[in-house]
């Protein structure tokens, strides 16, 4: 029904375009005065006036349907003491009423045993509320449709009466359009601020439970300890002292990231050098897109590959040569991540190497250097800043990567630098903290935002450095 309303709105708005245009064309002119704007603009004008307010209302109605539902069903006339109810009780009753609503209109003969007993157990006011809820959807749907015929039509018709030959709508329409696009660019910027503030806001809540120093310098990570805390309760920071220590997560992240870079840097750089300096254009045209496929494959695929194929192979290999390799080792996750990152290194490095001016190469050849000597002694040093930039971008990518480590790395924190042992990462713990119940007043949930903030800051810094380096380098040769 609500989508039908949207369709209706489109049709109504579209017809108002012709209505406004025709209205303008039908004006009887007095003297030699012409129409103040082009006829189209009267159409646009009506469409904007009709469409925008209705769209906003439609969106709000759609989004907060459940709130309206609660208002309609849980009225104080049915439940006089509703103001004193706790959230938990409210949820419980609401749940019961939604279950009742499914069966309340079925004839008694068709009911199953459990359903009849549910009906018998319910109070009179609960039954009335359930009947209200059962009828809510259709009432709600139809009221939206009516609002969406009436509101636009009344708005459109009343405003169309203003149209006369002197009304110059073009500046008005243009002003509305400029404001729409200005608003859009504000939204784009708001996303950044939204990220920053939602992270900061929830992280501050987290640090009301946990000491700043305990979080950043403690080496013990046992978030399970916070599970005993119920929402909103104030707790002694001493209990949470050894619960949220960030250090093992950081080392785990760096460990997996280093393994990944250990794979991605040599392979990516070698591919970039070969494709930029040696390969014929034919080979290049085929090989480059194929390598870039690696970056386009969803990370959940790499995670699946790492957990189900790579980890068992590594474990069996370790067993056969007598080394104990964990099934959730940082190695498996890191290797898969490394493969994923290869194109990030190779593509950017390739661009940078190709942008080194040929005069440098020619000078080196003229002095008798071989091709490889030229690359090693001249081209690479010249391209070094850009290559470093590409490495940093790859590192920031590795730190923020989630699915591979969620699927292949361990959940248990382990302060180690041995890639054969299990390790956990920041992103893994964010996901673990938020799987299951999300309670915004509990440190076990809030810690995800503190971790997210640290992740955001780390990748941001890496990124800014990388972009600055690459930009400086570009200026040098342009």
């Amino acid at each position, binding site marked *: 029904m609500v989508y039908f309303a949207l369709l209706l709105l489109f049709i109504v708005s579209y017809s108002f375009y012709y209505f406004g245009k025709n209205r303008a064309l039908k004006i009887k002119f007095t003297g030699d005065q012409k129409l103040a704007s082009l006829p189209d603009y009267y159409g646009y004008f009506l469409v904007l006036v009709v469409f925008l307010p209705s769209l906003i209302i439609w969106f709000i109605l*759609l*989004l907060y349907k*459940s709130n309206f539902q609660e208002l309609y069903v849980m009225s104080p006339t049915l439940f006089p003491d509703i103001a004193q109810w706790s959230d938990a009780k409210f949820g419980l009753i609401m749940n019961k009423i939604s279950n009742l609503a499914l069966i309340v209109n079925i004839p008694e003969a068709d009911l199953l045993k459990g359903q009849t007993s549910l009906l018998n157990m319910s109070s009179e006011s609960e039954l009335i509320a359930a009947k209200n809820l059962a009828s809510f959807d259709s009432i709600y749907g139809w009221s939206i449709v009516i609002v969406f015929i009436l509101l636009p039509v009344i708005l459109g018709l009343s405003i169309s009466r203003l149209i006369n030959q002197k009304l110059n709508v073009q500046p008005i329409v243009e002003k509305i*359009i*400029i404001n729409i696009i200005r*608003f*859009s*660019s504000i*939204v*784009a*910027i708001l*996303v950044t601020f*939204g*990220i920053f503030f*939602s*992270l900061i*806001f*929830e992280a501050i809540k987290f640090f009301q439970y946990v000491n700043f120093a305990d979080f950043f310098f403690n080496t013990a990570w046992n978030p399970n300890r916070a599970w005993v805390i119920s929402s909103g309760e104030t707790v002694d920071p001493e209990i949470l002292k050894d619960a949220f220590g960030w250090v093992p997560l950081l080392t785990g992240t760096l460990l997996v990231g280093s393994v990944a870079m250990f794979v991605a840097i040599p*392979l990516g*750089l070698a*591919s970039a*050098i*070969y*494709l930029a300096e040696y390969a014929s254009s034919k080979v290049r045209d085929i*090989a480059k897109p*194929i*390598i870039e496929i*690696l970056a*386009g*494959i*969803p*990370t*959940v*695929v790499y995670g*699946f590959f790492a*957990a*189900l194929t790579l980890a068992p192979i590594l474990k069996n290999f370790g067993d056969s040569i007598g080394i104990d390799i964990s099934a959730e080792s940082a190695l498996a996750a890191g290797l898969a991540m490394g493969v994923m990152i*290869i*194109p990030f290194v190779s593509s950017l490095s390739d661009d940078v190497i190709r942008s080194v001016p040929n005069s440098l190469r020619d000078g080196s050849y003229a002095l008798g250097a*071989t*091709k*490889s*000597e030229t690359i*090693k002694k001249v081209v690479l040093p010249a391209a070094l800043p850009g290559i470093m930039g590409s490495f940093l*971008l790859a590192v*920031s990518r590795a730190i*923020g*990567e*989630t*699915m591979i480590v*969620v*699927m292949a790395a361990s959940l248990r924190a382990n302060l180690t630098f041995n890639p054969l042992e299990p390790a956990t990462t920041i*992103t893994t713990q964010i996901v673990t903290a938020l799987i299951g119940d*999300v309670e915004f007043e509990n440190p076990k949930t809030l810690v995800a*935002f503190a971790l*997210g903030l640290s992740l*955001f800051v780390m*990748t*941001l810094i890496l*990124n800014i450095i990388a972009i600055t380096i690459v930009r400086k380098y570009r200026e040098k040769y342009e």
Partner: protein
Amino acid sequence: MSNIKKRLKAERRFKFYGQLGVFLSLLFVTLLMLKIFTTGSGAFFRTTIEADVFFDPKFMQVDKNSSDKEISRSSFEALADSVVNNNFKDLNEGQFIKVREMFTRRFDYQLRDYFLDNKDDYKKTVKLKITASSDLDQIVKGNYPRNVPEEQRKINDYQLSILDELNKQERIGSTFNFWFFTNGDSRDPETAGIWGAIMGSFYALMVCLAFAFPIGLFASVYLEEYTKPGKITDLIEVNINNLAAVPSIVFGLLGLGMLIGVFNMPFQVPLVGGLTLGFMTLPTIIIACRSSLRAVPPSIRHGALALGATKTQTTFHHVVPLALPGTLTGTIIGMAQALGETAPLLMVGMVAFVMEIPGGPLDPATGLPSQIYLWSESAERGFIEKTSAGIMLLLLFLILMNLTAVLIRRKVEVKW
């Protein structure tokens, strides 16, 4: 002289390293694809067991005159048990349970669905191909080893002997697994399907497109056409470039903290998932759109302005239409990225067990990648091939989207 030989040797070695790098990278692509395709192809077929089904009035509460509604509400459990007893003579209780386990748990549903379409078979005997349980299916496909000790197998020796007997009678068959494409998720691998997840992803992408495309396009138009270069534009430029490099999980936290926490939007629904993906896609679209707006030559703007068009007319009648193909390419690539993204969906709760096919962006749903994640975490062996098959579908969609983008770039995009 030996010096030159050494240098040439080093040259060849260096070139070999480069070739090795390219070769290994290409090898990884091939291996990954090969692995996914070999594990995943099995999921498109399911094993069936042929059985004689006698629609016996003794075990049915309905007959051929019953209405469809009555049939849908009645239980076929007893009939399913009778089918097992009729086809395998003289079973004791323990044996009966083991044989029943070789069929899918949804045996009765399959009988009911058949009876709904063929009410005339009441009191008649028909040969039906009943879906086997996932464990048996895996044995038949050879994904389970048969030669391990009995206690490590889900199919015991007795069941294996029955299987061999059935095989000899040629009653084990295989049909195309339509359920995989039409069903929602299920606890039983043999009936689990991907359609619910596809619809979830579809609604999320539609929301993402409806949010990110207009906002991205308008924001780029504003930044490129209506502002003068200066400190503020620079700041916004840096801002958007950084936004493009923020890890996707942080966008998930934004969706959770902002949309669900502050604006009280519902959990688990494609609407919130789509908006979160939209935040993530926005920078990609803006960057693509701005570069194609910048590529439109100034002479076109000057021409329109010289003929008396206003700034807005020039922009929306001349510049934007010319920049649209480039913007579309960027948008499709951004959508493809959004389709493959899992972490934001995890954050906004689109990873629950959902059996129903979502009917709109406000119904609880999973997305394609999060369904893949859910299946891959499952302990049931039968879900491994489902996971790979899900990945195959996901990759297929990604390839189609990227191909569309390439085609638009080749055919429609204006080159200046």
